[in-house]
């Protein structure tokens, strides 16, 4: 068996591993690149490239339903990510100072949303909001999104917090800084990269959601993924490609921003 050739002892470079990695990356990107390419097609076809044009993007920008859904999505993601980040920051600040044994239960609750399959969250929220009389719509969407965003905001924040030097805060305390000033002058600025990463991750996770939003959104509170899904009833059209490509662009922008922050951090 060539893979386990006894003459070669070097296990770091195994034959075929580089090829597998390259193919894996190609498999992840090829469909997306293809979708983006065809969004610039000048014809209506999604299988034959006639030429390049902006026309499908113009059609998307002129479509008021898409604009409304996009606005809902962004508003929802901004509110949910912001509220989740504030809650997660408070939780992280408490957790680092707590005794290990007391931490376990709180940690299990904080991570709970990560363990629930999305479809279960979706229908449990639908049952909950309709049975307590809150009804469906934007308000319910905000609550549900904030809830499942909390652990995603929490992870980068707590990672940053645990890597911070506690001596800096005690130094401030030695210089008679009151707790609130210690927090705003020392802890918060040092924590900033973690806060931004946490917020961006929560923002993307909220924007990514389809199934929970599709169960909870009432008329008028449709999010962009839910709207794209409803466009699919007519099959994949160049408009679907164009609006999907815009979502890819938005994700790429967020990745670049968080990459720049990570680089600054080190």
């Amino acid at each position, binding site marked *: 068996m060539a893979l386990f050739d006894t003459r070669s002892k070097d296990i770091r470079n195994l034959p075929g591993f580089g090829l597998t990695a390259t193919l894996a990356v190609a*498999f992840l990107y090829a469909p997306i690149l293809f979708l983006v390419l065809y969004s610039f097609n000048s014809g209506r076809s999604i299988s034959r490239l006639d030429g390049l044009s902006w026309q499908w993007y113009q059609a998307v920008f002129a479509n008021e339903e898409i604009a409304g859904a996009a606005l809902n999505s962004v508003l929802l993601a901004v509110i949910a990510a912001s509220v989740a980040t504030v*809650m997660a920051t408070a939780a992280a600040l*408490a957790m680092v100072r707590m005794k290990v044994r007391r931490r376990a239960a709180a940690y299990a609750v904080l991570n709970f949303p990560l363990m*629930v399959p999305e479809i*279960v969250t979706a229908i449990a929220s639908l049952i909950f909001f309709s049975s307590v009389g809150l009804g469906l719509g934007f308000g319910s969407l905000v609550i549900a999104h904030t809830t499942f965003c909390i652990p995603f905001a929490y992870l980068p924040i707590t990672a940053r917090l645990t890597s911070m030097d506690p001596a800096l805060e005690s130094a401030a305390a030695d210089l008679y800084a009151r707790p609130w000033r210690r927090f705003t002058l020392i802890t918060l600025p040092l924590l900033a990269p973690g806060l931004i990463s946490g917020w961006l991750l929560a923002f993307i996770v909220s924007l990514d959601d389809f199934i929970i939003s599709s169960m909870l959104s009432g008329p008028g509170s449709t999010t962009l993924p839910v709207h794209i899904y409803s466009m699919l009833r007519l099959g994949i059209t160049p408009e679907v490609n164009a609006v*999907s490509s815009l979502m890819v662009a938005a994700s790429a922008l967020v990745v670049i921003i968080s990459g720049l922050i990570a680089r600054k951090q080190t």
Partner: protein
Amino acid sequence: MKLHRLLLAPSLGTILIFMALPIAITTLYSVLTPAQYGGVIWEPSSEAYIRLLFERDIFDDTLTFNTDYLQILGRSVLQAGVATLLCLFIGLPTAWFIATRPAGQKSLWLMLVTVPYWVNLLVRTIALLLILRDEGPINRALHAIGLTDGPLPLAYNNFAIGLGLVSSFLPFMILPLYAAIERFDFSLLEAAYDLHANRRQAFFEVVLPILRPGLIAGGLLVFIPGIGSYLAPDILGGGKTLMLGNLIGMQFQGSRNWPFGAALSTILMAVTLIALFIIARRAAREDA
């Protein structure tokens, strides 16, 4: 201490009230009677769980064993299981390759496998359908070079769903494995070679046992979302082959049988929690 409670209360309270409580209510709904147009009537009933295994005759009320729903359950487990194995076979070499690159290349490769995770899942699923279609680039390329006469059935079947699950969750396998390999102490391998292990023994008896926590974490991160997956079977399966997620969703859209949907989702939740519990206990035992 009081301050700690105050700081923890908003996040823990939100999760308990708006996620844990709704799941508890869902379990309660699974033993109630369905109302005609969605919702429930507050009368206890085990009908939802009976329905999973039996079909009730509408005329004489007799029960006959029916495997339709069990088949969907089995298919979901199978699809998610196969996808997890595929992710493992692709993810392990990929993660190994990335972790053994020099520092500069490493971050580039990591970025490459993380970025797709940030792209909307619905968009990624549509993109995959676009290239698997009968008129998609793969089929047209195969036809153009004369390998096939007609289009290969790549879309709207179990194969497409499986491919969709792999592409949805592959980063979840690569990243924990990468973290595990990154921490791996390669001098352990030199020790193994000094003790006359060959490459195969070194890999299976030294490397794999140490990577096990990463393998398990990656496996769970693929299997759990895979089993309840909604978009891949819905879009890539063309609605022909249902998985558990679609069956649950249907009970709240067209069919309107909330208790049955609640029962199915209770079962999915139970399976998930049992899997997590077993693994957490095993991890605790290994730590001790």
